[in-house]
């Protein structure tokens, strides 16, 4: 019975990944060649308009990953459980590790991300600038909103005001810059087109 379960799961995984790869290849072959288009991220300052802040819902809870901090995956991982997302990765510069948690984004709805940043030894990152952004590389644009990023306790940030306004492939990008180094993590996310009015 156990053997059958493993075979089913592996078969499902292989077939699904194969389908996705083939479909992606099919998609690319159907597209006209496009010039390289840089991903533009809005860098505008916060408008000088005072908007009252709202009471936001509590953040989602997910089980703590069983792996040790030092064992962050080499490639970014996106885990989904009970409507929550857990994103983990080693920074591409190898200086910091990132862990992001949020509810599964609904298209066109604001959502909040809580993030933890660790140094290579697994300690919470100290002082620094942290941000989470999201871009659509195929579209050449980012979000229509400008999120805020607030440090709560050492190495932990709360980012509010993210919104994925279109279905399709997004890259969620976390950045951290301290006095010593800067590092980045990129997660691929396929946003569903299912919306609430």
């Amino acid at each position, binding site marked *: 019975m156990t053997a059958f379960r493993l075979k*089913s799961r592996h078969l499902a995984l292989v077939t699904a990944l*194969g389908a996705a790869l083939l479909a992606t290849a099919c998609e690319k072959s159907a597209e006209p060649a496009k010039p390289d288009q840089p991903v533009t991220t809005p860098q505008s300052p916060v408008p000088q308009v005072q908007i009252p802040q709202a009471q936001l819902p509590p953040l989602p809870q997910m089980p703590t990953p069983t792996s040790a901090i030092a064992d962050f995956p080499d490639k970014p991982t996106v885990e989904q459980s009970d409507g929550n997302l857990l994103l983990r990765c080693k920074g591409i510069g190898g200086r910091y590790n990132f862990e992001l948690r949020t509810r599964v984004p609904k298209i066109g709805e604001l959502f909040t991300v809580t993030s933890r940043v660790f140094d290579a030894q697994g300690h919470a990152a100290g002082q620094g600038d942290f941000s989470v952004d999201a871009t659509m590389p195929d579209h050449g644009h980012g979000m229509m909103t400008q999120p805020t990023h607030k440090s709560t306790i050492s190495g932990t940030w709360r980012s509010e005001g993210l919104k994925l306004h279109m279905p399709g492939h997004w890259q969620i990008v976390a950045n951290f810059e301290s006095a010593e180094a800067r590092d980045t993590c990129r997660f691929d996310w396929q946003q569903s087109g299912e919306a609430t009015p």
Partner: protein
Amino acid sequence: MTAPFACLIACLTLNLQPQRKALRASSAWWGQTLTVIAIVAVLAGCHKRGIDLQGPLQPGEIALLSSLSPLPPLLPDPSNAFADDERAARLGLQLFFDKRLSGNGQVACANCHEPHKYLTDGHALAAGMGQTERNSPTLLGAQWLPFLFFDGRKDSQWSQALGPLENPLEHGTDRTAVFRVILGHYRPAYESIFGAIPAVLLTNLLPEHARPVHLSSKDPLQVAWDGLAVSQQAGINRVFANVGKALAAYERKLRPQPAPLDHFVAALKAGDINGGGHLPPAALRGARLFVGQAQCISCHNGPLLTDKTFHNVGLPPTPGVDPADPGRGRGASTVLGDEFRCGLPYSDTTTCEELRFLNPKFADFAGAYKTPTLRNVAMTAPYMHSGQFKTLEQVLQFYKTLPGQASVGHRELVLRLVDPDIPTADLVAFLQALTGPLPDESWLKPEP
């Protein structure tokens, strides 16, 4: 060759789901992950090359079609304490049809939002006391939108209702004149809802016409406005805002009614793979194209069939319309400076999430306009923000050819040609299946 193969594999993957549900609970997320991958594969692999539109609906198609219906209950509008006050809605109904709320006594809200034209006017460009540069959008479904007007320069239905009143090309009136109409013709109804009109306004010394005129300190209306006491200005602003809130309370009654698509999806969700036969064959093919090969659902998603946001599709210019109009590029800044926006004294809430994170300098706002709802779209021609197209066939022909370039900003990179081989008639048949009946007749004409 690869697409049918991907389709086959993806469908096999989906068929494995019942077995996978028997797996232990700790691995449940595998099911979600694989299902998502499989649906993407189905849509990307199968639809890209065209699936058999005569065959049974695929699971991915059912999931996407089900996301288009039904409209859920309307949430409260915290910015308008009278949004769901029945008395305010009845007052709003009367105001909606009242031509005295205009500079020439000839323009009412209903001029451009004719009830029996699904709250549009049938003209390419709306006209009141002058001709505007925008098409009149339907009001059916507007109560769900976070930003109003094609450029989103208002953030609530009640503040939107105030804009046309003081626009010289629309009603061409002013808030002091509006106050006089309320005082002279609606005072009992008004005071029963909003309370007594401030005593400071009950004077014969108020000017006939006065309002703020942006950047025009010598304009006679501005001069007259400057002559009022601060308490009088605040009192008139309050009455003016309440007029907007009554109009919005009325407009919240104007909800899209169930269309054939809604009946179809309801039957699908009840387990009828044929959707109860509520979509004729051509409309069903169009529905599958809409969520599949044509990818209309990228922007026209959710039960309102709009993503409620703004895109630059590079429409052709319209004679008589400023080709340099930045659309959302200006509207996003305008709403932040609006005196009746969320969070300011005339709003009934300080919770303003959409404004708080709005980025007015988002590069792709240039030349972008709001995605319109497609509910009742067959009844609301002409189309686009300046009425560029007279028919749905012309709209679809535009998306099949994407001629020209955007006059402001650039056409969104993702916007691809709709496959010219897709039958336009099928998509039009589906769009026609989005037509429901009009709201209750009692909300479509003023009370005697």
